[in-house]
């Protein structure tokens, strides 16, 4: 059973599109990445799920309970790291985190100490004196400190230095191991590629694709370069419908292939290819390809 389930969830602001019939599931122990350009609907999807904005239509459940109806007990199981790390500036980091813990009716002093040591955060600094990165650490701690079953992370590593990012990844893996479902939104494709088990690509409020990254890569376009024992012409491959962007230079040919490569490879062997080089698409290429197609 999925921890987070969206069924044709839509949100409109008057005539403006927020998200349109968005559906996906996030399972326990899974990091689900949502990708998309600015304004694609990533944050709207998260904020609708969290009840910050009301859905126009559709259904959503978190841990089996209706997410679109205010539910205080459900929120005990949720950790949220907002896209804008807005905290109460007048507090010290410790005071702020204790306040959040007290709102959760929990004493999390030990966990706050532990996480602040791991993320190298001075808890006694006033938040208004902290850099953007250190404020983000405060936000990361408040999201993880109560060990939630579902985590919503909106641009979580924004402002974090590479060392702290590594520690953040460890936190994420620890949460996965204890069975938390993690929804991670980011515009840093390499980060999502590195952390997520599956992704959804958002564009103009709609989901273009939901899949495992490895499967997306399989289906994606690949650039292939052949070297032949003789001069070759592009027309020799003209019958093959899933190739494009053919470039020929003497006895070398490069092209882009989508989906199965079998037909192309067979034809290349027939034409005397003796060397093949393939280049796997990065998530960035997949992403741009999908967006470009729209």
């Amino acid at each position, binding site marked *: 059973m999925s921890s987070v389930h969206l069924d044709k969830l839509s949100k409109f*602001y008057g005539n403006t599109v927020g998200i349109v019939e968005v559906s996906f599931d996030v399972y326990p122990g899974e990091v689900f990445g949502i990708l998309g350009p600015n304004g694609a609907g990533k*944050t709207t999807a998260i*904020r609708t799920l*969290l*009840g*910050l*904005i*009301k859905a126009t239509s559709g259904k959503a459940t978190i841990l089996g309970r209706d997410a679109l109806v*205010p539910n*205080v*007990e459900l*929120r*005990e199981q*949720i950790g*949220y790291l*907002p*896209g*804008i790390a*807005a*905290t*109460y500036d*007048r507090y010290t980091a410790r005071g702020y985190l204790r*306040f*959040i813990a*007290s*709102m*959760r*009716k929990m004493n999390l002093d030990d966990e706050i100490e532990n996480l602040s040591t791991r993320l190298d955060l001075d808890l006694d600094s006033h938040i208004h004196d902290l850099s953007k990165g250190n404020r983000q650490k405060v*936000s990361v701690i*408040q999201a993880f400190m109560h060990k939630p079953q579902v985590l919503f992370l909106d641009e979580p590593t924004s402002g974090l230095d590479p060392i702290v990012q590594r520690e953040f990844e460890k936190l994420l893996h620890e949460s996965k191991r204890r069975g938390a479902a993690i929804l991670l939104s980011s515009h840093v494709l390499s980060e999502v590629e590195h952390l997520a088990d599956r992704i959804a690509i958002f564009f103009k409020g709609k989901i273009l694709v939901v899949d495992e990254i490895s499967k997306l890569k399989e289906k994606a376009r690949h650039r292939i370069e052949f070297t032949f024992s003789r001069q070759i012409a592009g027309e020799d491959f003209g019958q093959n419908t899933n190739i494009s962007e053919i470039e020929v230079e003497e006895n070398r040919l490069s092209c882009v292939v989508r989906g199965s490569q079998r037909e192309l490879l067979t034809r290349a062997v027939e034409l005397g290819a003796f060397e093949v080089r393939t280049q796997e698409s990065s998530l960035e290429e997949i992403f741009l390809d999908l967006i470009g197609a729209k």
Partner: protein
Amino acid sequence: MIALYVKTWRDHWRTFFAWSLTLITLISIQMSIYPSISENKEALQGFLESYPEAIRKIFRMQDYTSGPGFLSTELYSMMIPLVLIAVGGTWGAAATAEEEDEGTADLLLTLPISRSRILISKMFAAISVVIVLAFLGLLNVIVLRGVVDMEIETAKLLAGTISSIAIGLFFTGVAFLIGAHSRSKGVAIGVVTGVALITFLIYSLSALVDDFDPIMPYNPMQWGLSGMPLFEGVDVVGSLKLVAGGLVAMIWAIMKFDRKDISTP
């Protein structure tokens, strides 16, 4: 809820301290003038009678030289209620609008506490600051009453304080309501201040302008001030109207906030 109540006080303790100091200073300055007035009652009364009737009516200067008349004109008809409106209004306006404006609402509203409980905690804090400040003013007046040798019963001072609190609570409720509708603390404070000043102006001019008569039964300043609490004691009906109006505005604010799409900065 207690954590949020304490947090609200903590967030605003500087403004509370500043307004307390302002109120004490204003009361002290005004009351320090009283001995020079009480010592020259007859001359001053004659001088006031030479004022145009319109001015005397606007500033309700009847019996100005008596303790109740002096305090009513100088403090309880405008100064103290306005301070309470300013403080309650600021806390009310900040309750939701500031959280949205600064982006802190996003996290706060995903914590395991309902929106209505969040707002009720903040309302308790705003109501308590109005009451605390009003009683601080009362204490100040009682202490200085002996110093300046002013004759006024404590019960009448209490009546003036209750009327001021009622006015303060009414506008605090309005501030919560505007704050829940707007995402700007500035807009909410501006609207509340504007409404308070306009209703006060209409109340003041109503002594002269008969055209205002039809709307006076709906003017909150009329409910709170026309009963002359320092002379007549608590105007129960007027005070209840104000408190009820403030509560209705607060309940409306809760309902609005419960359904509201929270904006981001």
